[in-house]
């Protein structure tokens, strides 16, 4: 019987693991991988104490720090598939087949990238449809590309692509871009970039590879076509809360509702922190801090 099972290997889960072990709580941590979504970041410049580090190297520092803790059981790579009430505590089922009995649970499973969910997206995945401009932009040298999504990730994908593509469209569903003003300026200054607002992507088509994209001009309802070779999808993310749906209260976005003072959820014995929770600011440093708050509160709860 564990005191605490932490689910997630991002900055929140790892920070919680370190604090749980140092508090001498009988702690287990379940993670598919370490580092969370920032693992694929080219460079992280805002992790406190480190001026700049690649996402990959950063994830390794988290893993090393975690593995240096004594008395911590790490189940990795593995995933939690279900959390259910069991006696006084909970049972956490793992994909690998194990079932962990525990008095408390901290959910720190973060969020995953949203897909467009339109015809052609799946069919042409890797054949022109891409989700990592940092990785794949050079392959679209001298080609025509589009980025879907006008948030920060979308704007940065456009900048990556402008280094290689001969033309980059940026399609945004609403009537304005939401990403950083400074990045918007850079894009608007490029003769190769074209921003299309109030555009809803409808279909990606091609033969062996992508050859075009259909979108709807929202105000008029007209369907338009762009001839292009690559579509980069940057339409935000969704919280990884499916495995606790029905157990704890979620908001309309699927985020776990927490008390922001203690990180407790609607169900006694379960805490949540980081991007899976309804925290306003989705940041590595915030996730780590919130997860630590949760562990300290769990420690008080178990006393």
């Amino acid at each position, binding site marked *: 019987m564990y005191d605490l099972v932490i689910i997630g290997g991002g900055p929140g889960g790892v920070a919680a693991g370190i604090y749980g072990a140092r508090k001498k709580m009988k702690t287990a941590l379940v993670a598919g991988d370490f580092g969370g979504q920032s693992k694929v*970041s080219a460079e992280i410049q805002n992790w406190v104490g480190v001026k700049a580090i*690649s996402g990959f190297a950063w994830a390794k520092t988290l893993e090393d720090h975690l593995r240096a803790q004594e008395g911590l059981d790490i189940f990795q790579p593995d995933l939690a598939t279900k959390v259910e009430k069991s006696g006084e505590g909970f049972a956490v089922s793992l994909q690998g087949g194990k079932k962990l009995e525990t008095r408390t649970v901290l959910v720190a499973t973060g969020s995953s990238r949203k897909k467009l969910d339109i015809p052609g997206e799946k069919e042409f995945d*890797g054949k022109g449809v*891409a989700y*990592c401009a*940092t990785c*794949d*932009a050079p392959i679209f*040298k001298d080609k025509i590309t589009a980025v879907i999504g006008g948030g920060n990730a979308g704007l940065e994908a456009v900048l990556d692509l402008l280094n290689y593509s001969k033309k980059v469209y940026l399609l945004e569903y609403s009537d304005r871009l939401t990403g950083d003003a400074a990045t918007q300026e850079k894009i608007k200054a490029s003769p190769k970039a074209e921003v299309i607002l109030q555009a809803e992507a409808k279909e990606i088509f091609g033969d*062996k590879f992508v050859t075009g994209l259909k979108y709807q001009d929202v105000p008029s309802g007209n369907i338009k076509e762009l001839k292009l070779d690559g579509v980069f999808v940057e339409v935000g993310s969704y919280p990884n809360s499916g495995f606790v749906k029905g157990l704890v209260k979620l908001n309309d976005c699927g985020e776990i509702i927490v008390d922001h003072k203690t990180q407790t959820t609607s169900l006694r014995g379960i805490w949540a922190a980081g991007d899976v929770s309804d925290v306003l600011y989705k940041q590595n440093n915030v996730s780590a801090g919130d997860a630590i708050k949760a562990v300290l509160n769990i420690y008080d709860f178990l006393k």
Partner: protein
Amino acid sequence: MMNSVKIYSTPTCVYCKMAKDFFQKHNVKYEEFNVAEDEKARAEMVQKSQQLGVPVIDIDGKIIVGFSESELKKALDIK
């Protein structure tokens, strides 16, 4: 027998780096092609894999797209 391992990568691709770290950890010799610079390698990669994404890994002619530790272990017969 030594495997012939080629990796088609870009300098900014984290999954490529993960794959190369995996090779180094398991003492697998590999040849790297930077498709951001090398146009011939880029065309070869697309032709071999029918994919427009990195990394593409060629192990004795078997093509693996993306980084998957379990697939690489299987292809290289690493326990």
